[in-house]
């Protein structure tokens, strides 16, 4: 199934949002930025800040279970993009990242899902220290 450019469908919706808000555009801000916007196609007031978690948390890892690969029609991990939602409601200084429930995108099919990990290392509100420039870690 070919997909519209950068439009992703959360086939099961996003918990907490009305189920009809399931189409989002992934907006990249700059090629070297860890930040992205996930903008609702159906409601312009709904936008999430996403972060590439691996640029801030270099040892972030998880296994994607079979049930997730099945519902997202995934055959290869190359098709996957992983992002985490940033909560910056109290300003960027006090922003947190949801490492417990990453957003997984299938770049080939445009299907997306927020999965909940079973991993005690990760929390739903992990502090994000923006002051540490992610560029330092890019060398690796």
């Amino acid at each position: 199934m070919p997909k519209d450019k950068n439009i992703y469908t959360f086939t099961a919706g996003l918990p907490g949002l009305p189920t009809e808000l399931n189409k989002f555009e992934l907006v990249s801000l700059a090629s070297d930025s860890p930040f992205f916007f996930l903008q609702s196609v159906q409601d312009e007031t709904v936008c999430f800040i996403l972060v590439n978690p691996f640029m801030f948390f270099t040892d972030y890892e998880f296994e994607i279970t079979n049930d997730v690969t099945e519902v997202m029609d995934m055959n290869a991990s190359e098709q996957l993009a992983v992002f985490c939602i940033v909560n910056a409601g109290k300003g960027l200084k006090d922003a947190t990242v949801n490492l417990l429930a990453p957003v997984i995108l299938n770049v080939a099919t445009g299907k997306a899902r927020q999965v909940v990990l079973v991993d005690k290392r990760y929390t739903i509100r992990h502090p994000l220290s923006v002051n540490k420039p992610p560029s330092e870690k890019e060398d690796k």
Partner: protein
Amino acid sequence: MLVLTRKKGQSINIGNDIRVVLLDVTGDTVRIGLDAPSDVAIYRSEIFQTLRRENREAVANLNAISEIENLVKISHKDRKS
């Protein structure tokens, strides 16, 4: 709430395409298998409430959006110079 008694290996159908299988019972732990279409989200209840609240709070306000936009602009400029 509908209450049914099931034995290990038995299952329950909900609607046309959701099936719940009772896989194993050990002490007070029950393992459950779930078959459901891809548009049905399945989450553990205790985390589902927290996740819903967190997602609602994480919807970005205009301040946060412009903070991010500025940050990206600044770091972009830094690297160019």
